[in-house]
Each structure stands twice: as structure tokens, then as C-alpha cells.
């Protein structure tokens, strides 16, 4: 489709008299209206999914990228010395904003959910954890690993990429599936509207014959049909998108569950996407009906 905006505006502005030359098209009108509404409703959810997974991926990447952990396991006698050595390495590493060994109390708090409150942390061979905060540029994980191995053999760097990567991949895949669904929804709508337009054109072949007899151009005849289907798709999609947005708004808040769910809602300017759904539906209907109409008219003697 060549998006010729002035032409589309022309079609939408229409002319009341020209509109009347094609009789009301009954069930195809409802088919168009209903499928546009249903597809727009689904499109809003697919959009919400895509945008939410996008947000999720960004957040995971953002939150996790800025922190790392160094775990130091060593015989009880060497633990303090190795921790000190590791901290020294970390403090002189470019890209590390701060590094801090967790206190016994903090470590106990971390383990409490699993072992209960009275764990004698001091007497157990539990590794010491060092919390590392990165700068925005981040550090070179491989270089740091090598230096730690040299200074504190019991230190293991965990920069979280190991488990962040599959999550980010899953989020990206979800986002892709969301956009794919949107494409499929658009395609299905185009197919249904083409079908409806073809049915309307076939049912009106006698009308088209009369219009040609009195000197109507194909463009004029096509426009009468195109305008009708475009406006119907626009209207149906507006209703469907409105209902979809309402449904998204009424989703229960998931934030408090403390999970990774960010809620399926739209944030800020993302609401504009909801407004774009009916407009896109109108464009799809315009292109689909125009193609169907001209194809039909070419085939008619």
C-alpha cells in the first residue's frame, strides 16, 4: 500500500450524495464492525504484552547489571585475610563504585528464611559475601576474575549475567511474540474485511453496472465502498480498543506480590499506542477494501 494521506482524507470526508449510490450492505457491515472491534480488543492486549515485556527486560537488565557478588570460601583462619585482599582488589578496580563485605548479622538475615534465626554463623564454614556496586560503565568481569584468583584464591565473582541472560532472552522472545501477534491480528482483520468487501461488491454487481452505464469511473465506485468499510473498521476498532483499554485498566495490581510481574498496564505515553489501534485498523481496512474493489472492478466487464 502507498499511504496517500490526502487521498485517504478525501475518502473520509466523502460526499453524502456519493455515499448513497451504494445501497446499505447489511451483514457485511456487521461482519466488518464486529471483526474490527474484536481484533482491536485483542490488539490492545498484544500491545500491553509487548510493552510490558519490554519494560521487564529493561528493568532486569538495569537492576542486575549494576550489582555483583563476590563469594569467598576459605578455611576459617584465612577468611578474614582473603576478604581483605579481595576488597583491596575491588577498590582498585575500574568500574567498581563500591565494595563492602556483608556483616555477620546481614549474612544471618539472608540465611534466616532457610535455617531459622539462631544460626551460629561464626562457627559455620559459610562463605563471606562481598556486595559490589558497579558504575554505569561497569567493570571487566574477566580481568577482575583473574586478579581475584591471584590475590584471593577463595574468591568467586558472580556478576549475575549467568542467570540474567536467559531471563532477558525470554523477555525479548515474549516481546517478539507480542509484536508477531499484532501482525497476525492485523493480517486476520485485513482478510476478514477483504472478504466482507468482496461479498458486498458481488452482491452489488447490478448497482455497479448501472453506475457504469451512467458514466461513473471505477475510482468513484470503489470510493463509495472503500469509505464505507474504512469508517466501519475505524468505528468498530475504536469501540474494541476502548473496551480493551478498560479491561487492561481493571486488571488487578500485581506489583505488591513482589514478583517480577510489572503489571500488564500501559504507562505514560504508551497509552498513545491504544489510540493508534483504531487508526491502524482504519488504514488496514482502507488498503484492503481498495485493493479488493479495484480487483473486482477490473474483473467485471
Amino acid at each position, binding site marked *: 500500500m502507498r499511504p496517500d494521506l490526502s487521498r485517504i482524507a478525501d475518502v473520509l470526508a466523502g460526499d453524502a*450524495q*456519493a455515499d*448513497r*449510490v451504494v*445501497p*446499505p450492505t447489511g451483514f457485511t457491515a456487521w461482519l466488518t464492525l464486529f471483526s474490527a472491534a474484536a481484533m482491536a480488543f485483542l490488539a490492545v492486549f498484544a500491545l500491553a504484552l509487548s510493552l510490558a515485556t519490554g519494560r521487564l527486560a529493561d528493568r532486569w537488565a538495569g537492576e542486575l547489571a549494576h550489582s555483583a557478588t563476590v563469594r569467598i570460601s576459605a578455611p576459617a583462619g584465612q577468611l578474614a585475610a582473603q576478604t581483605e585482599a579481595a576488597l583491596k582488589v575491588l577498590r582498585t578496580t575500574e568500574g567498581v563504585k563500591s565494595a563492602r563485605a556483608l556483616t555477620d548479622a546481614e549474612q544471618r538475615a539472608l540465611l534466616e528464611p532457610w535455617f531459622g534465626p539462631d544460626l551460629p554463623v561464626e562457627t559455620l564454614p559459610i562463605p563471606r559475601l562481598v556486595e559490589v556496586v558497579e558504575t554505569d560503565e561497569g567493570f571487566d568481569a574477566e580481568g577482575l576474575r583473574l586478579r581475584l584468583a591471584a590475590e584471593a584464591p577463595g574468591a568467586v565473582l558472580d556478576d549475575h549475567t549467568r542467570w540474567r541472560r536467559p531471563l532477558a532472552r525470554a523477555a525479548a522472545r515474549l516481546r517478539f511474540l507480542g509484536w508477531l501477534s499484532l501482525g497476525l491480528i492485523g493480517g486476520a482483520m485485513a482478510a476478514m474485511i477483504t472478504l466482507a468487501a468482496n461479498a458486498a461488491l458481488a452482491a452489488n454487481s*447490478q*448497482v455497479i*453496472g*448501472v*453506475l*457504469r*452505464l*451512467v*458514466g*461513473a*469511473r*471505477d*475510482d*468513484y465506485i470503489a470510493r463509495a465502498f472503500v469509505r464505507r468499510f474504512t469508517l466501519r473498521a475505524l468505528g468498530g476498532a475504536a469501540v474494541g480498543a476502548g473496551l480493551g483499554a478498560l479491561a487492561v485498566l481493571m486488571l488487578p495490581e500485581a506489583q505488591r506480590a513482589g514478583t517480577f510481574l510489572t503489571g500488564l498496564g500501559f504507562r505514560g505515553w504508551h497509552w498513545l499506542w491504544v489510540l493508534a489501534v483504531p487508526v491502524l485498523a482504519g488504514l488496514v481496512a482502507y488498503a484492503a477494501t481498495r485493493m479488493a474493489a479495484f480487483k473486482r*472492478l477490473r474483473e467485471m466487464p
Partner: protein
Amino acid sequence: MIELDDVAYSYGGGELLSEIKLDLQPGSFHFLTGPSGAGKTTLLKLCYGALVPTSGHARLFGKELRGMVRDDIAVARRRIGVVHQDCQFLDHLTVTENIALPLTVSGRDLLAESANLKELTQWVGLSNRADAKPPELSGGERQRAALARAVIMSPDVILADEPTGNVDWEMSQRLMRLLIELNRMGKTVMIATHDLALIRAAKSHVQARVLRISNRRLQLAGADL
């Protein structure tokens, strides 16, 4: 205006029309006659570009029909008023809207033409049926509406297929007077009919050539007409 040059036409079976030569000069008046099924309607359709000759050449206003795209034909149709044998209306529109249809599709301002429209509706005696739908009309009323629609654009050529087939003698005389008057204004007119009495009556008012289709060929009718 409209010219058929050695035209033949067949709907797929044997040839229905052969070696047709016809030249509708500006301002001429023709009758086309012949038995039912001879091909009168087919010949008219060739004249307004609804059918393309299987061989030979059809020229509309000097342009070869085969070389014309559909838009060209649409534009040429606006200069040809056609009264179709079975009228061909849009049943969901009123009589007035149907008569105005050629104006509508060519983008004319209907308000500017409303006086013209009213006068014409009156002329064909349909003023009291102006808001009726075509299916509610009698056969004769339909033909009068079809004639009004054919002339609303003030076309150069009027092709009428049995325009008086369903009306009484008096009304047919009135419709003929309208067509003769249009011819006096310089319009080219061709009327297909098998009503010989109508032709005889008209010949005292207008210089008309009478053509007859017989044995697939077009001939000038004898002096008996």
C-alpha cells in the same frame, strides 16, 4: 460521433452481427429496427462501448474503442445518454435521485441543476412520482424516468432501446416529441424499436434514416417506412 467500421460481434456462438457499417453523424436521427433477437440491443451496446467488437473497429468520438481504458469509456458515456431496454435503476434511490444519477457520478452540483431536474421530471410527467422508488413505478413510468436520466446531462448522443415499449400511444408520441426536440437542438439520436407505426408517425416530423438488421447485416429500410 459514433462509428462502426466493418464490425462483427458474437457472444461466443455463431456471429450475431456481421459487416456492420454505421456512422452516426452529428445531428442525425436514426431508427434501428428488426425482429426480436436480431441484435438491436447488441448493436446499441457496441455503440456505447459496453461491448467490444469481435472484429472490426468501433470509434467513439473519434477514439478507437479498443484503445480506450475504462476511465475513457466512463467519460465518453457522459456524452452518450442511454435508455436501457430494461431501464436499470438503483432501487434504493428515489426517482429523482435516479434521474440525477449521471450528474451525481460526474461530480456535478445537484443544487445548481435542481431547476433543470424539476423541469425534466415534469416534462416526462413524473412530478407526482418524484419521491417514489423505481420498483413502485409502472412499466411506462419506468421508461419515462429512464429517458429523463438519459438526457439530464444534455448528452451529444442519445441511444434509446425500445423507449416506448411499455407506454400508450399518446405517451409514446410525447416521448418521441421530446427526442425530436432534442434532435432539433443538435443532438444525435438513435432509437431501436420494432414499432413500425411509431417510426411512420415520427417520419413526418423529422428527417430520419431507418436501419434494419436482417440476416446479421445492417440495411437501409425500404420506402415502405
